[in-house]
């Protein structure tokens, strides 16, 4: 059995967490402000080399983070459906559907009575119902009270207030879906697309031919960004962004490593929230500092026996895949009931881009979760499973993510063979709540807990 400590539940939001939230808030706020001032604002895939845009002081938003936020705010379904009404199939990645609906002008808004322009309240929740509106139609309305009220009815959270793009930055190291997703955005808005293509890799080592090909594309991207920004490439700013990105990555990895402590000083679910910072702000000094602050808090938790986990940790698991954002409470509930803490997530190594110099930077960006071979993928995961002392693995078969889920069955076999730990899979989706079945999930978690218990008894 794991060591039991006196748990003091940390209910208040710590300064480190507050700082991390503020960093992401600032990214969105600054992009909105830039848009107001007529400066170009970009939309970028999460693992596009942000250092390049930073060298031009360009404001960039991240549709993946946005889609996750919209899904977590329970508007994933209405936005996915909006994309389907635009003829995008419901098999397409939920993030892409949400993003494409948003790019087309669709917004989730508080429902207005068309006659009175008052909110229509749902008696059960005592909050307004949600309706889908089109921002282009609202913008086209004559100035006046109705227009103002309709604009004000759009959900106020930052992801539903992201400015429209003037250019797009696409890097397909995550998936090929990204390529067509961003092409569609470029087409909708008639804007330039900067494409960094990172072909899928079949070996653990990144071959020199990959480095040369991607380096060549960086040069081209810089030329395009010079045109978009009207500025010359600023070497100093680029180097600063690289330094910040490295510092953020190291601090992120340090934070993730606190999950190695048994019991852990935090809930692994916290990392899902903090990911927003590594996605949207890893090139910013403030992000590095916020993670460093969080690390000091975790260090303190270790010393004092505190944890952000609101229950005693009895089992430790790796959560494989992107969480089902619309269903976080449902994901958490059976884990809490069974004392299961998530002490390993693949995002830890996946965003820990530490490098020195341009070639290493290229190699780092070749190592996204869905761009690496199975051996690399297994090695990452088994590494954190060992270091973070997990008792089992919970695998999310994510309808939205074909490249990720496509070799999980083989990985599961390897985890069990190599680490002697049980695995359980469940069906879900990162953004579309219609693809998640709570009952199935609970059953699978229960099965995993029983297998972990049996494993533990056998060892004793």
């Amino acid at each position, binding site marked *: 059995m794991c060591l039991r400590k006196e748990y003091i539940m940390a209910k208040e939001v710590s300064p480190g967490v507050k700082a991390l939230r503020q960093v992401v808030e600032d990214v969105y706020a600054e992009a909105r402000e830039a848009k107001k001032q007529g400066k170009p604002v970009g939309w970028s895939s999460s693992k596009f080399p942000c250092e390049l845009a930073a060298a031009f002081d360009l404001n960039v938003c991240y549709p993946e983070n946005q889609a996750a936020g919209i899904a977590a705010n329970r508007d994933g379904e209405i936005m996915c459906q909006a994309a389907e009404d*635009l*003829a*995008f*199939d419901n*098999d*397409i*990645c939920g993030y*892409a559907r949400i993003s494409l609906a948003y790019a087309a002008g669709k917004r989730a808004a508080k429902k207005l009575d068309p006659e009175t322009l008052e909110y229509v309240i749902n008696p059960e929740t005592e909050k307004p119902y949600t309706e889908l509106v089109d921002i282009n139609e609202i913008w086209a309305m004559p100035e006046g009270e109705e227009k103002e009220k309709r604009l004000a009815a759009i959900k106020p959270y930052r992801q539903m207030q992201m400015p429209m793009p003037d250019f797009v930055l696409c890097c*397909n190291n995550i*998936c*090929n*879906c990204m*390529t*067509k*997703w*961003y*092409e*569609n955005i*470029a*087409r909708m*808005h*008639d*804007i*330039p*697309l900067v*494409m960094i*293509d990172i*072909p*899928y*890799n*079949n070996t653990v080592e990144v*071959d020199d*031919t*990959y480095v*040369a*090909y991607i380096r*060549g*594309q960086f040069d*081209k991207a810089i030329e395009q960004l010079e045109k978009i920004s009207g500025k010359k490439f600023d070497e100093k700013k680029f180097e600063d962004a690289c330094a910040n990105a490295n510092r953020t990555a190291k601090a992120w990895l340090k934070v993730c490593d606190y999950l190695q402590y048994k019991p852990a000083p935090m809930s692994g679910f916290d990392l899902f929230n903090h990911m927003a910072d590594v996605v949207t702000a890893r090139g910013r000094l403030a992000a590095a500092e916020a993670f460093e602050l969080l690390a000091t808090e975790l260090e303190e938790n270790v010393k004092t026996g505190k944890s952000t986990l609101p229950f005693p940790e009895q089992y430790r698991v790796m959560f494989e895949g992107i969480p089902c954002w619309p269903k976080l409470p449902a994901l958490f509930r059976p884990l809490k009931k069974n004392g299961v803490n998530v002490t390993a997530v693949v995002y830890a190594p996946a965003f820990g881009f530490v490098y020195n110099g341009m070639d290493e930077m290229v190699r780092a960006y070749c190592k996204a979760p*869905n761009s690496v*071979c*199975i051996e690399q993928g297994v090695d990452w995961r088994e590494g954190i499973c060992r270091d973070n002392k997990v008792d089992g693995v919970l695998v999310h*078969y994510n*309808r939205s993510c*074909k*490249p990720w*889920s*496509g*070799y*999980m*069955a*083989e990985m599961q076999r390897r985890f069990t063979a190599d680490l002697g730990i049980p695995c359980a899979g469940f*069906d879900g989706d990162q953004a579309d709540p219609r693809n998640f079945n709570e009952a199935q999930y609970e059953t699978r978690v229960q099965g995993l807990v029983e297998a972990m218990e049996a494993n533990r008894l056998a060892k004793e």
Partner: protein
Amino acid sequence: MNTLFEKFDQISKSPAAQLSAYKAQGKKAIGVLPYYAPEELVYAAGMVPFGMWGSNKKTISRAKEYCATFYCTIAQLAVEMLLDGTMDGLDGVITPTICDTLRPMSQNIRVSMSDKMPVIFLAHPQNRFDLNGLTFTVSQYTNIRKKLEEIAGKPITDDDIRAAIKVYNACHVQQRRFVKLAGEHPDVVTAVRRSAVLKAGWFMLKDEYCAMLKELNDKIEALPACDWPGTKVVVSGIIFDNPILLQIFDDYKIAIVADDVAHESRTFKTDIPDDADPMMALAKQFANRDHDVLLYDPQSSKNRRAEFVAQLVKDSGADGLVLFMQQFCDPEEMEYPYLKKELDAQGIPHIKLGIDQQMRDFGQARTALQAFADVLAVG
């Protein structure tokens, strides 16, 4: 002519027998998964490239050990046929990775075939146009060349590749000619026959196929002009080779006058250009591939692919377009809204039918196609 149609039909229906026949001749064979693998190199090595585009007869069973349900059946059935021994005669297999399903499948196939056969990896570049992209393509193709040399047990010379390029380009000419002739003579080249002739090309050495196809084309060309009483369409999608579906076209006199199908014209519409370096020639062919759901378009703010397909409908004299949407194929799905937009804007009627290779009930497709044919006939 009927004998030739029967031959093509036989070959398209029995790839296993075809594989055995080549093996009996002492030839080696390499499985080639979609899309755009340089099978000219296989030919240049003196081996037989064997297209692997799933099957309409198999049921997914063993592939479930590797794939969740939400993957296209072409990829799942490729894994199935490798696992169940159908493809045991192969001496190797090439796995391109240009879509999100093929990425992990390349790993599943490499892992599951580790004791059976060499698995040759291919990652195409999307920024494929300038020297940087071309160089990367050449480096990938060079890896393939080396692996094929190991399997063949002999070097592939530049002259071997040049000879293969000639054969393939000559074959493209006949394939395109056949597509055109089939559109002009749908009374003789039924949808079922058209598909069989094109499909057979994936299971034959291209020189043999090209000779047979030329003979057929000459015969079709000699036919009197056809006054087609039915409707004419362009078909679009990844693959469209199910004989029952094709029969529905023939039942309702829907002629296929051109196609934008990955398994058909998308493969052979782009020739291999001249270049002193034959590897570079192959890379340039890939760079020149265009208007494709799988490939990056640097002019993405325009709607070039949809305009191309709409133009194809007009140029071929079709009355409309039938889109076969391969289930779980996100590249096709992502391009559909803008294709629809363009077709609608140009007043081109179209119908979208969801298909996969595990489809066993065609009632809905039959009703939809019949209704579509009626609409086109009235229009």
